[in-house]
């Protein structure tokens, strides 16, 4: 008997799997093999693992990741429950706004931390006691929280959505008080959501690059920063490769846990969605949740506002707004090696190309995962693997394996596009995959019975319903491409310098507030993408 859908239905996964294997797993596998051999095999592995500086980077990664994840969950959980369970004025706007930090380049956030808590920060200026938050571990954790508290909030809210409303009502009709309903019916799924957010925070923070580099220096280097330093500064590529391999082993367990919990979060036990109820603000617990949510929204807004406000600081004897003039001046062009407008053009070009590539791969993948949630989980795992290996390792592997193949520096732009697409895929494809996985089969099956092939049925019946998801995926990939710094910084040659790389140069040289103007430009671009997503009424899933 032939199974309907059989092996042919996997066909859609071929392009995306081929892409990830060719531009992710294969070069990385070869990199690990060659560097391990170059370092002397097992003895080299032991030597790299016992190096005190490497050990410190591992300790830093665990410390920064653990602290950031713990605090992000502590702050994000109550706000996530408030967002996920209750209706209140401005809820949709806040939910949308919380996505902005995720789309922002890490360098912009670093700059925002300096603008608020640095030597002449908006907050640390009048309140010197806040200065410790402008450097060292507290500043790095602060930057990590800016990115990741919204992630925990959104995943916790998704956990509220995933709970069964019938079960909650049943507990009440059986005599259980609200806290019992929380304990027995809906609390567990919110913790699954918070744990997913917490694990993602841990991974992002433990593998962060720009914050330790710019806010603290070598004593705070994470594994990611240490790999970069070993390869690009100390010129020890084998040691860098072996350390990357150790990092993979180290972060395998949290990544697996993230994927398993993400799969659980997507398995809805009920067809009915719990309606939101007006927030009972007389309840002290709910009031506290509202307070945390407002504080988070304000803090996120304050950081963004600080960057934009700083761009109006006078520079070089000029007046208000002279930072913007300086940003586009010939002097800045000389310092960066190319005009800022050219860097902006490069940025937009790479982001556009990466988003188109992502959408094309997303369409193919969508066909394979439509109505097959388990495949979505498998695909998610596959796409997440390169991310586990971190952008710097990905860039390192791409440069080692593909750079000679494509003809060297003149064509390195290809690798930048590919790396941005690989990094955007896990998040962008979810926007397509989640709505498709839950589709009813009716329309597609009707098309099949009317004579359509599986592909035609998919294009006619399913794809139109995934159109919003595809547009979101494209915009998402575009926004992530705009802000991508780590892999691009590793791969880029001067002629292909992007705005984030230029921003790094300006920040590293402490060229404030011109750097703020560059950050403001990136921020405005990201906000524009967010507005397009919001005005389009598209719901974005992380």
């Amino acid at each position: 008997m032939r199974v309907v859908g059989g092996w042919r239905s996997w066909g859609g996964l071929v392009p995306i799997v081929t892409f990830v294997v060719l531009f992710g797993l294969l070069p990385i596998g070869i990199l690990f093999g060659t560097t391990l051999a170059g370092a002397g095999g097992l003895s080299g592995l032991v030597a790299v693992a016992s190096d005190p500086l490497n050990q410190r980077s591992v300790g830093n990664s665990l410390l920064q990741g653990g602290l950031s994840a713990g605090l992000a969950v502590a702050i994000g959980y109550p706000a996530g429950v408030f967002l996920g369970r209750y209706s209140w004025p401005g809820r949709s706007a806040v939910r949308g706004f919380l996505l902005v930090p995720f789309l922002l380049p890490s360098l912009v956030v670093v700059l925002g931390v300096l603008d608020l808590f640095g030597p002449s920060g908006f907050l640390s200026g009048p309140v010197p006691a806040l200065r410790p938050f402008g450097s060292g571990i507290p500043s790095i954790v602060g930057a990590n929280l800016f990115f990741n508290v919204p992630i925990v909030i959104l995943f916790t809210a998704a956990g509220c959505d995933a709970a069964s409303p019938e079960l909650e009502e049943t507990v009440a009709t059986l005599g259980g008080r609200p806290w019992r309903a929380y304990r027995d019916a809906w609390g567990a799924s919110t913790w699954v959501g918070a744990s997913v957010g917490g694990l993602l925070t841990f991974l992002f923070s433990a593998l962060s690059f720009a914050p330790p580099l710019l806010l603290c220096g070598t004593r705070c280097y994470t594994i990611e920063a240490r790999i970069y330093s070993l390869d690009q500064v100390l010129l020890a590529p084998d040691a860098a490769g072996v350390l990357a391999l150790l990092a993979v082993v180290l972060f395998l367990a949290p990544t697996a846990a993230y994927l398993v919990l993400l799969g659980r979060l997507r398995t809805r036990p009920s067809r009915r969605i719990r309606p939101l109820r007006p927030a009972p603000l007389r309840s002290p617990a709910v009031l506290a949740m509202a307070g945390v949510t407002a504080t988070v929204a304000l803090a996120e807004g304050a950081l963004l506002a600080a960057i934009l406000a700083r761009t109006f600081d006078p520079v070089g004897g000029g007046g208000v707004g002279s930072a913007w003039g300086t940003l586009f001046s010939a002097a800045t062009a000389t310092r960066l090696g190319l005009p800022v407008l050219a860097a902006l053009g490069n940025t937009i070009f790479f982001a556009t190309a990466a988003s188109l590539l992502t959408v094309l791969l997303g369409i193919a993948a969508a066909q394979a995962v439509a109505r097959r949630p388990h495949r979505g989980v498998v695909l998610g795992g596959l796409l997440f693997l390169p991310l586990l290996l971190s952008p710097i390792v990905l860039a390192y592997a791409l440069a080692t394996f593909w750079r000679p193949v494509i003809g060297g520096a003149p064509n390195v732009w290809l690798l930048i596009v590919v790396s941005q697409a690989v990094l955007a895929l896990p998040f962008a494809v979810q926007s397509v995959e989640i709505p498709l996985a839950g589709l009813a089969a009716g329309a597609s099956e009707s098309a099949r019975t009317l004579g359509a092939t599986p592909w035609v049925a998919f294009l006619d019946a399913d794809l139109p319903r995934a159109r919003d998801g595809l547009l979101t995926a494209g915009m998402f990939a575009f926004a992530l491409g705009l802000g991508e710094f780590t892999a691009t910084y590793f791969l880029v040659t001067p002629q292909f310098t992007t705005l984030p790389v230029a921003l790094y140069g300006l920040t590293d040289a402490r060229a404030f507030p011109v750097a703020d103007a560059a950050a403001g430009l990136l921020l405005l671009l990201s906000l524009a993408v967010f507005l397009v997503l919001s005005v389009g009424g598209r719901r974005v899933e992380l």
Partner: protein
Amino acid sequence: MSSSEPVLRVERLTSAWDGAPVLRGISFDLRSGELLSLLGPNGSGKTTLLRCLAGLDRPTGGQLWLRGTEIGRWPTHRRGIGLMSQEPALFPHRTVLENVAYAPLLAGRTDRAARDEVAPLLQLLRIEAFVDRRPDQLSGGERQRVALARTLAARPAVVLLDEPFASIDVELRSELRAEFRRVLRELGVAAVHVTHDREEGLFLGDRVGLLFDGQLESLGVPSEIYAHPTSVRAARLLGYNVGSDATGPFAVRPGEVRLGAPGAGRRVGTVVAAGTVGDVGLTIVAFEDGARWEVRVPPAAPGASIGARVGVDWDAEVPLGPAPEPSKEPKNGRTLQRP
């Protein structure tokens, strides 16, 4: 409380969704040990009514009295009103026993005491053989039995049943209906049951109410409700053929219609479908005014071919009135008991 005093009294209950009325002044009493079936088409407000009674939705007006106490503002968990829905909503991570014993454990009983307390219910609902299974290891009918046992283990003053058999296979449905009726009678629990299935409503209820557009149109014992439909929509819901003549609308039972030659009956129509349903012949006749009637005859009776003109006659008809206005009290069966 005297034995004649109702367990539950619902007075002029109203509810709205986005400003549109869903319940329009529902009133009824539920007596001790009584099973009240409310029969209504989709969108008539059945589920909303039960959710308001359980405290899951907030009514916009009216009063609820449970054993003489006004409970309209009480939270769900304090009401002592159990709700069982079409979806059994069992705790997926708990065994059957843990599900059923949930409410006794909630009330602070020890494991042993809770187990002893629910043992008779497990036996009564014939689920004692799989107490250690989890919900995903049960069939649909078994899950519904467990859900009822869990609801009853909370010792509710009133049980609300929201189309509990809607997702059950046809052959199992009648068995479960009989089982539920037996258990509820044996325990003497008062219950309100809502359904759109007339056979189920008329079979289960000690009394039956007809619900349309958020109004309770009729309330009475099943035989009376069936014998005396009060309006065109009530007659249609109960399965009558509806016609109209100079005196107004009337209803005729499908089994009391006879087919003959075109000039032989009071009306003339065209056969649009004909066949058999088990041991009954079923013919659909369309009239010029657009009405369609079902005619049920023994299969041996002479059938009419599709497209044939036939005369239609009947033995008895029930005169029908118009649907009552929203503010009117339900009639038939006939008047509600007032406090």
